[in-house]
């Protein structure tokens, strides 16, 4: 869909205002620090890949062994105890709360559930 210049400008201004907040910048910094650290990044990638694999197999009706689930939990504990992953996760929780408030505010002023509209709910 092509947006009018007025709508585009207003949307960009909001995006830039959000980008400049401490909450968004802290999250982006935390994510960047995580991606630049080989150990943290590998741990998280391995955990995500294993989780996707186990979920897909479970959904396909395949039996997932206890040992595999246990191995996943070990990996998950390692990942979640890594300081860079923990810091990013904390920053992400704060980001989500912050954006939730902004989205609710926008929805109230629009008279419509903005998030539901965007996500097709």
């Amino acid at each position, binding site marked *: *869909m092509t*947006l*009018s210049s*007025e*709508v*585009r*400008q*207003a*949307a*960009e*201004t*909001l*995006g*830039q*205002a*959000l*980008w*400049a*907040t*401490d*909450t*968004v910048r802290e*999250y*982006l910094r935390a994510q960047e620090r995580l991606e630049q650290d080989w150990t943290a990044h590998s741990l998280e990638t391995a955990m995500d890949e294993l989780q996707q694999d186990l979920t897909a197999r479970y959904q396909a009706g395949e039996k997932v062994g206890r040992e595999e689930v246990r191995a996943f939990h070990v990996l998950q504990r390692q990942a979640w105890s890594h300081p860079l992953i923990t810091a990013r*996760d904390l920053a*992400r*929780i704060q*980001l*989500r*709360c*912050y*954006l*939730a*408030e*902004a*989205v*609710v*505010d*926008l929805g109230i*002023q*629009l*008279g*419509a559930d*903005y*998030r539901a*509209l*965007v*996500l*097709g709910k």
Partner: protein
Amino acid sequence: MEWRVMAWPAGSQESGLMNPQRWQNITVPEAIQSLAAVLRGTPEFQALQVAARMLNHDEAIQHLLRELEVHQSALQHGDSAAHSTSLAQVRTELEAHPTMQAYRQAKQAVRELCQAVDSVISAAASVEFASNAQRGCCR
């Protein structure tokens, strides 16, 4: 929550422009207010408002909605077979009604507008806006 921010004009983030004369003091609530005002004035939002008003004033629609409620309530109280068929019929009738179809169409147009707007916000903010807007501790 810290809302007051320094915002950069469009394009300056990418180019790394740091010229203070081009900065503007704007708060997130102010930016939200401006965007909401602009969006409310778009043909899509105006059309949705008209369609919603027509829906609320359409006697046939209101009658069908009341019927829908009766069947849903009966189903919740365990009165299933007959109400389940009636409920499906009322739903079909409701969705086929021209006023309802006009409303659905208007809503879809607003949905597409908001999705396009959300992409612009997300690109400028460097984070997904609507999909990240959630409370809770899940990863």
